[in-house]
């Protein structure tokens, strides 16, 4: 039961695709390389688990909870935009 719970709160990253491709937008792929993160472990928030920049930042923040949030991390949530 505890296991199921953990899975629900930390869902598995996207399932492996026929051609092994990880679905992520170009900027997210770039950022993952910059942060030295394994994209296959990042949970994407888009359709089909598509990974956006904010997902990579959120993943990084989850990896390093003890650290003071950096500027980049602070921007990880999607704030309401000026309008």
């Amino acid at each position, binding site marked *: 039961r505890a296991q199921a719970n953990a899975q629900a709160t930390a869902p598995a990253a996207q399932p492996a695709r026929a051609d092994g491709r990880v679905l992520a937008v*170009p*900027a997210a792929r770039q950022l993952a390389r910059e942060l030295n993160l394994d994209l296959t472990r990042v949970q994407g928030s888009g359709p089909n688990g598509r990974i956006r920049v904010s997902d990579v930042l959120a993943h990084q923040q989850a990896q390093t909870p003890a650290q003071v949030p950096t500027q980049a991390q602070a921007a990880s949530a999607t704030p309401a935009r*000026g*309008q």
Partner: protein
Amino acid sequence: MTTYDFDVLVIGAGPGGYHAAIRAAQLGLKVACAERESVGGVCLNVGCIPTKAMLHAGEQVAAARHAAEFGLTFGEQKLDIAKLNGWKDGIVKKLTGGVSSLFKANKVTHLQGQASFLDDHTVQVGEKTYTAGSIIIATGSEPARLPGIEVDQVQIVDSTGALVMPDPVPARMLCIGGGVIGFEFAHVYTNLGAQVKVIEFAPSIIPGADADAVKAFQKAMEKQGISIAVQHKANRAEKKADGVHVEIENVQTGEKKVEVFDRVLVAVGRRPRADGLNAEKAGVTVTERGFIPADKQQRTNAPHIYSIGDVAGNPMLAHKAMKEGLVAAEVIAGKPAEQDAVAIPGVVYTSPELAWVGLTEAEAKEKGYDVKTGNFPFSASGRAMTLQQTDGFVKMVVEKGTDLLLGVHIVGPHASDMLGEAGLALEMAATASDIALTVHAHPTLGEAVLEAAEAVHGQAIHIMNR
């Protein structure tokens, strides 16, 4: 339970109306569409399509002239005006015939005649009366009039009259109104040999477009021989033996001058069209200016009556009407559709084209964004050179910090084709980096979009970055 003649009755078979009708039918609803004139509305009959046909013809005349640059010259050139008008009409017929066929194939009942509400579920079309569970108002818009200048559709025309090219092509033409429609006609008539003047009341032509783009566009139009006067208005027009005498006023200095033209186009905007609709009998709110406003599901104040397209509000553009038509149909069919477009693109189909989607630099700043921009000129594009069309540029408006794309503004060859990428990028919340990291085929005009994105980061390859 009440049964209605139709699940959905659409009033008006313009792009908004016919998209709504077909989508509703695709979703299994019983649909009728009332139209008092010809299916296809303004767009297919006297708007988007015939203007583009005329523009293409005009551009081919210009292209033949430019061909001399690479050694291709022609003997005497002849333009059979009757054939030109007929060719254009043929395209219109093909497309409107296509919509009729699609109605049949999708089992949409086409009701010919003027529609008006009897109550909120009952509509009279011609002599007959129909009931419907949901009703979509898609009655469109018509040319705004200008006091003192009476349209006769021969010497003084609106956009509909301007579509019939006279033989011979008028030597001197005045376009009153420097918006999209004014410039498309100015361009056609110029290419076919007229001396064209455009006057615009506002301080700038093409309202809504980015200031830098407008500047480049204006320069290109002037280079082609179109004379442009902003902050000028036409007070009155008088038909005389030698042409139409128009009093033109400089609204800044108050100076007035009379000039003579062979044809005068009034293109000062469009107004919503809800005449004879008797919307009040259905309890539907019509604004003072004649619009029938709708929410994001395209519902009017009466929740089972929808309003879409030009009559629903600005911008008065066919693709906005289409989107709203699909949304209304899907909402009626119980789908969670919403008109949630991030941006509605705009295009002037001249050569170069002016095309944009999203926020202008000024709008972005007004909205409080911290903005950076990137520009790439077509003069540095190999593909543009081979197409002999190097005027213009791509300008990208991006939020600093997040790199989020806010708007794309293009003056140049095939600019409207490049809106595909720009529009998708905006809807996908793409960043300039997403575009810059995407491989663009070489040599294509789209590389200018890529390079403008690189320029945002000071990393364009084919220009020196600021």
